């Protein structure tokens, strides 16, 4: 109940923002009969109506995980974002080993297997992608080998 209402409200607000943003598009005088604004605004309006429907006719409450699990999920998101940012400057091997290890630990909290799967996956995937499929992955930070 409550989560449908809350998220209905959230989606509704996003939809309103979405409707507002195309109105900022400057149209040059070279334009077609429909123009660039109509479609996004229409989509936004339909989305807003559906969101309102969610607020007033919510489905039965879904089951959310415990607070501790939320913490794990939060950590996972942070790990993935950090991994995305680290991949270019630090090369493939080190960030992959760390990220895969941390994710593994979030799924099954045992230190040994997590470390093993992190390091193992990092090396295995590097070999597969670099030599099997020929993607030009950079192994280590660029600075190390000049």
């Amino acid at each position: 109940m409550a989560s449908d209402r809350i998220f209905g409200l959230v989606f509704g607000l996003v939809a309103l923002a979405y409707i507002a943003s195309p109105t900022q598009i400057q149209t040059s005088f070279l334009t077609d009969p429909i123009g660039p604004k109509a479609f996004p605004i229409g989509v936004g309006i339909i989305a807003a109506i559906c969101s309102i429907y969610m607020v007033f006719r919510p489905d039965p409450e879904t089951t959310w995980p415990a607070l501790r699990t939320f913490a794990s999920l939060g950590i996972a998101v942070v790990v993935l974002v950090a991994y995305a940012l680290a991949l270019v400057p630090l090369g493939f091997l080190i960030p992959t080993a760390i990220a895969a290890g941390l994710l593994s630990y979030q799924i099954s909290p045992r230190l040994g297997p997590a470390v093993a799967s992190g390091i193992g996956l990092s090396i295995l995937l590097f070999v597969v992608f670099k030599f099997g499929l020929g993607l030009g992955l950079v192994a280590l930070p660029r600075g190390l080998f000049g």
Partner: protein
Amino acid sequence: MELFANLALGFSIAFSPTTLMLAIIGCFLGTIIGALPGLGPSNGVAILIPLTFTLGLDATSALVLMSAVYYGAMYGGRISSILLNIPGDEPALMTTLDGYPMAKAGRAGDALVLSGVASFVGAFLATIGLMLLAPLLARVAFLFGPAENFALFLLAFCALAGMAGKNQAKGVLAACIGLGIAMIGVDNNSGLPRLTGGNLHLFDGIDFLVAIVGLFAVAEVFFFIESHGRNTSIGVRLEKVTIPIRDIWSTRWTMLRSSGVGFVAGILPGAGASLGSFVAYMSEKSIAGPKGKFGTGAAKGVAAPEAGNNAAAGGALVPMLTLGVPGSGTTAVLLALLVTLNITPGPTLFTERPEVVWGLIASLLIANFVLLLMNVPLVKVFVRVLQVPAWVLLPGVTMISFVGIFSLSGSYFDLLLMVAFGALGYVLRKLDIPTVPVILGILLGGNMEDALRRAMVLSDGDWTFLFSSPIAIGLWTAAVLGFVLPIFLRPLLKKPPAPET
């Protein structure tokens, strides 16, 4: 018989120990590429193009290798859909709907074999269609203007309505999310950027692969963390892999119909394999009705999209070869390959370079048989994936997804977007909002808007132009009769007879 003479010419070119070897290598690489999330047929083929030059392959051998990779990737996409609920590429999206439930019920092997056979049927019939009808079918493209294209995409969206599940509003909301995302980027009809916030990375819009991998693969990781690996197909005890003859036989008409639907969708420029599998699935669902139990692991629900998308892959070669119009991302890459080999596809290709066309057709047939033979024994290898413990498999899938998406543009921006889509996917699934319409909205939304606005440019804003041709009227009728009316009729039909007093 000119046809047999042509085909003999094709096989005389394509059938040699070397090319056979290349076909096998290509099929294997293609299957792997297709199965890896984020690496689809189009970037798979693009990655392997340099291989053809550096191996010093001649034009025919290069074509054999690449067409094997192309068909192989189309086959391979289904594997991760079925085993992990993560589509290996966008045409395999619909296969998750029934393939994954089937795997969860312990029938992963059956689902893989059945979908493999369906893929074969679709691809085989499409190759035959290409062979017999290509020059004729090329003319079909001339019948599809903006109004007809709009009606076609509208048909797809009406079919979406049947997809929504329990709560219609949530289904529509999901489609709107997808459509909203599709609007991001430079607008073709005015040349102005929309909803980009001035960010250059968003000017070409958001790649649907980023959305698919995020909504499915990354979201799946979050669910695993939440459930600590329970409540999935991983760890399910597997029966011995047998050939599910009964399922194959019971879906024979489904496969044939879906092949036809997919082939036609493939021929239409701009529609492509995803639309083929989608329309095939939805029309089979419509035909079967609620008794078909689509969405719960129905055999027909596995066979239809796979026959559809593989037939569409074959169909997409028709406009590519005869007009030089690539019907999908992958055929665009194949087109690039042909051009680099100094072969210019177009209306004169069939008469000027018969050896290329028939060599290609022969190698497609060969690749198709190789794939069928290879897939049955390989199924045993693939289902073993499910016995890999979740704490190794899931980080592995995540890292593969990152590499696949990274290979699209080489920027961290797409990776961050992908993580954001992962979080969105988690919330949506928690709220019971379906994610498949989101992807379809992204895939089709831009095309639909473009088609409508082009139609209005041509007609000076006259809406009746949308119904001005028999094809357009036919598509509108199909949309209304096939997908919109049933929604209103179903409650009426289902109503129990009034109790007599």
